[in-house]
């Protein structure tokens, strides 16, 4: 010990750390109740998952309100299972893509295409696959549902994590290398914390997005397989079948309660805790408040009880899975072998070509070019719907969002509502529109269309609010001084000011709308079924008929449309907005 002569204060501090206070306080009590409750719910909810499918057939869904809490619990657990799988996928695959440049060359574009594949189109294959994996068991259907939720949640999380990993600040990277942190330590000390804020935000967005699909994936009809997993989605589907308004209302209420609960009990505490991971060198003014987090911070006994876990964590942190000795400088490792690069490129190209051929071969056994043409024109129809509705929604919500965003007090109250509306599964509200169309005898081709944007328009609203709310004060003052008004104000000041935020919102809304078209273009109320001509209806009908080839064709065409428009429209706009208009 070289510091010995002067470290008397150091020893005092060690003594202070060692002084133990283990008496529980009131916060411990509350925290225990919360924790105990959570564990009991998880155990209870998962216990029934492993029954056989036969039981599921006899125990039909009941519309009694008393069953609703149970169903709500089951649905919520599915959501969290999806999130958990998504997190694991993110940590493994996104990390791999970021660390290995060759893997990244495949994984990143693959994820880009996969995120444009309509999730609900997947159900056909996944249900067949998972039921085949666990014949006659309920767990197979559970997995199919969780997988559908997972595919709706995972992509933006993985992208966020990948982007964080590839933009680690140089100085922190050098600090880690100079102190010789192992890859394992580096991941938990640098990479994961650095990526945390973005990942947490995207996890919350994914959780919101997942509701839409959980409702659609619990009551599954593929060909002659008809499965109704106990949950809010099945409850709702039954309520729609039986035209039971009060049951629909109860389901909606249950959903609202769940969303509020997990936001308060889980996400807000995490957000409050994650505030320290933000890479800003000065203390920010606004901190996320969470009463749950405050309780946890004030507990006394809980902290003592968590000591063993902290100890395990510390031990794990010292594990050296790989030695840091072989670290080379980044510039050197970029020197790839040219020939190996070309060989790799050829392999990838070959793989893609083979995949295309297999798909083509599979489809052409039963389908003709005429079918492709039908799918493509349906796609154009759905595209027209999406474009028209995004434009309409923008015309309405951009001015409203700016108006709200410029009034901070109002924005603070409206913003959570807009985010909640984006989380709310709009498919719940479809029956009302169907009734209205049936009663008025309106044209479903036109009037079913608003359904595809019902749930996604809120992304535009809350992003525009966020943009207007963060409009710099000095610019607002300049606007006032020079009395910039009316058209000049819109064209020169406000629209450019919110543009990057609007693009983010509109991009998300468009992606969601394509997905929604599968449930929106075919909607039913009791025995009444309405259908609009479009790609969504094409896929939905093929799914119900169990026509796997047409489902594949529909998915391929839809993925093509989405990817194509992301590339030629949204990506350039996004780059432009980031480069030219972002303040700072």
């Amino acid at each position: 010990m070289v510091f010995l002569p002067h470290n008397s204060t150091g020893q005092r501090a060690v003594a202070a750390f060692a002084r133990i206070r283990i008496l529980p306080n009131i916060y411990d009590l509350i925290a225990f109740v919360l924790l105990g409750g959570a564990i009991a719910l998880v155990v209870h909810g998962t216990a029934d998952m492993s029954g056989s499918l036969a039981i599921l057939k006899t125990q039909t869904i009941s519309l009694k309100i008393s069953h609703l809490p149970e169903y709500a619990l089951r649905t919520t657990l599915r959501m969290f299972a999806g999130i958990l799988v998504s997190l694991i996928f993110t940590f493994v695959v996104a990390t791999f893509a970021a660390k290995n440049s060759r893997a990244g060359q495949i994984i990143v574009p693959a994820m880009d295409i996969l995120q444009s594949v309509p999730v609900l189109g997947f159900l056909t294959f996944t249900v067949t696959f998972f039921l085949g994996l666990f014949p006659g068991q309920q767990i197979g259907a559970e997995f199919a549902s969780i997988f559908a939720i997972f595919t709706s949640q995972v992509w933006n999380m993985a992208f966020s994590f990948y982007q964080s990993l590839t933009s680690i600040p140089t100085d922190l990277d050098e600090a880690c290398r100079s102190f010789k942190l192992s890859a394992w330590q580096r991941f938990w000390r640098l990479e994961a914390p650095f990526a945390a804020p973005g990942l947490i935000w995207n996890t919350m967005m994914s959780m919101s997005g997942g509701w839409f699909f959980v409702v659609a994936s619990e009551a599954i009809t593929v060909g002659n397989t008809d499965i109704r997993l106990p949950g809010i989605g099945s409850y709702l589907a039954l309520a729609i079948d039986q035209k039971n308004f009060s049951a629909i209302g109860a389901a909606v209420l249950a959903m609202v309660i769940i969303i509020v609960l997990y936001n308060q009990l889980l996400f807000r505490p995490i957000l409050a805790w994650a505030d320290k991971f933000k890479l800003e060198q000065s203390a920010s003014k606004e901190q996320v408040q969470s009463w749950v987090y405050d309780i946890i911070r004030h507990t006394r006994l809980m902290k003592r009880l968590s000591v063993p876990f902290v100890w395990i964590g510390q031990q794990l942190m010292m594990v050296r899975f790989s030695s840091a000795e072989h670290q080379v400088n980044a510039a050197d490792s970029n020197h790839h072998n040219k020939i190996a690069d070309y060989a790799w490129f050829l392999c990838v190209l070959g793989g893609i070509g083979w995949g295309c051929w297999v798909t083509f071969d599979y489809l052409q056994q039963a389908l003709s070019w005429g079918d492709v043409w039908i799918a493509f024109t349906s796609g154009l129809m759905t595209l027209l719907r999406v474009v028209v509705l995004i434009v309409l929604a923008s015309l309405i919500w951009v001015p409203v969002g700016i108006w709200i965003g410029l009034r901070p007090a109002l924005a603070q109250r409206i913003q959570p509502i807009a985010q909640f509306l984006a989380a709310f599964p709009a498919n719940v509200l479809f029956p009302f529109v169907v009734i209205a169309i049936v009663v008025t005898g309106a044209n479903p081709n036109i009037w079913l269309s608003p359904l595809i944007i019902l749930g996604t328009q809120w992304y535009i609203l809350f992003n525009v609010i966020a943009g207007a709310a963060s409009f710099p004060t000095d610019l607002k003052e300049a606007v006032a001084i020079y009395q910039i008004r009316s058209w000049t104000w819109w064209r020169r000041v406000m629209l450019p000011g919110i543009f990057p935020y609007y693009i983010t919102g509109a991009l998300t809304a468009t992606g969601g709308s394509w997905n929604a078209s599968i449930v929106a273009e075919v909607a039913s109320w009791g025995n009444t079924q309405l259908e609009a001509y479009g790609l969504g209806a094409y896929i939905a009908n093929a799914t119900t008929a169990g026509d796997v080839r047409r489902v594949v064709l529909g998915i391929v065409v839809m993925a093509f449309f989405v990817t194509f428009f992301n590339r030629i429209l949204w990506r350039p706009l996004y780059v432009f907005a980031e480069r030219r208009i972002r303040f700072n």
Partner: protein
Amino acid sequence: MDNSVIVKNPPLVSVQDVCQTYDNGASGQIVVLDKVNMELQRGEIVGLLGRSGSGKSTLLRAIAGLLQPSQGTITFEGKLISGTSSEVAVVFQSFALFPWLTVLENVEIGLEARGIKPAERRQKALSAIDLIGLDGYESAYPKELSGGMRQRVGLARALVVHPKLLLMDEPFSALDVLTSETLRNDLLDLWSEGRMPIEAILMVTHNIEDAVLMCDHILIFGSNPGHIIGEIHVDLPQPRNRLDPAFREILEEIYSLMTAKAGSTNTIHSQPFLGNGIAIVLPKVSINELAGLIETVAAEPYNGKADLPPLAASLRLGVDDLFPVGETLQLLRFVEMEEGDIRLTALGQRFVESELDDRKRLFSQQLSTYVPLAAHIRCILDERPGHKASAQRFRDELQDHMSEEAANDTIKAVTSMARYAEYFAYDEESDLFTLDNPS
């Protein structure tokens, strides 16, 4: 050389013929460090002094094992350096603290990497925190601290792993004058009292006074490519006094070294920038800085001729800021710099006395004569029927001779000067050079 001397007093670090080059696509290599030789003895503080782009930080990173030099060898205690070592710790200009870890956890991170048990870790970290004067801040997060306190955390984090060599990369340049003064004095006290567990310090700086205040040896780096142009031995006792005539003399000496042109007595026709013809690397300098320096030198008390050390001190400019401005002016023949002095030329004097329009005309005339790249762009614009040319084309052209970053900076510098002189215009939206100035 006498072998017995080497055995008796082996250097802690020995750098031999180190070159650092980067591949620049098909067009060849960019040299950052060119055949650098140096030695670092135990018990010494050595400073690497030079402007940005002189490769001094690159050398520090090579010694830290953060990068592998393209050529040459670096040995630490006689052994070749490969990768980072636990005997060497680094203090960063930007502090490089983990914002999500507390002060205590930040200090512990190096110990954790070595698998030291938590209790021992804590005790060592607390001692280091105590030593460096951070008592009471153990549980604070970096963002709650001022810059000076953050750099103390960086220092404690480096010292706690008991390195033999402490590397400091511009440790004070992100701090204000008063803060860096305090921190420097504290550091020197700890060093002279032998309370830090280190054997030598190597520090990179662009502040000449900092270097003279702290170091036993100063290696002065020239740019383009980075190489050592001189070594100065500072024999003054600590604590050193800025007003001491001997101190001032050393400052003068360093400034003369930095303004001297290698192997040339005729300063007018040599130029400090890398490359020749159109491919001169120009630093990013604003027009206001250029005009500001000319006017300052022209005004009282300098009246057209200024001694660089007091000028730098009064303007609070480091080597990084002052030299690029001065050298750009020298390239345009508005000033001459030699032997630590800066002197206005007759043209510079005319510039000061002119009105804005005449200034622009003068500037435009010098630009076309002495900045070949500007003349080249103008020539192409004149030839083209539409008087338009893509800026990317010139960037690509420059990249045959320099790095992408240097090419971008050079184009930016030329654009900024040409815009002021109304020599040609640039439209960012379309990335085009044009001749039509909006009027």
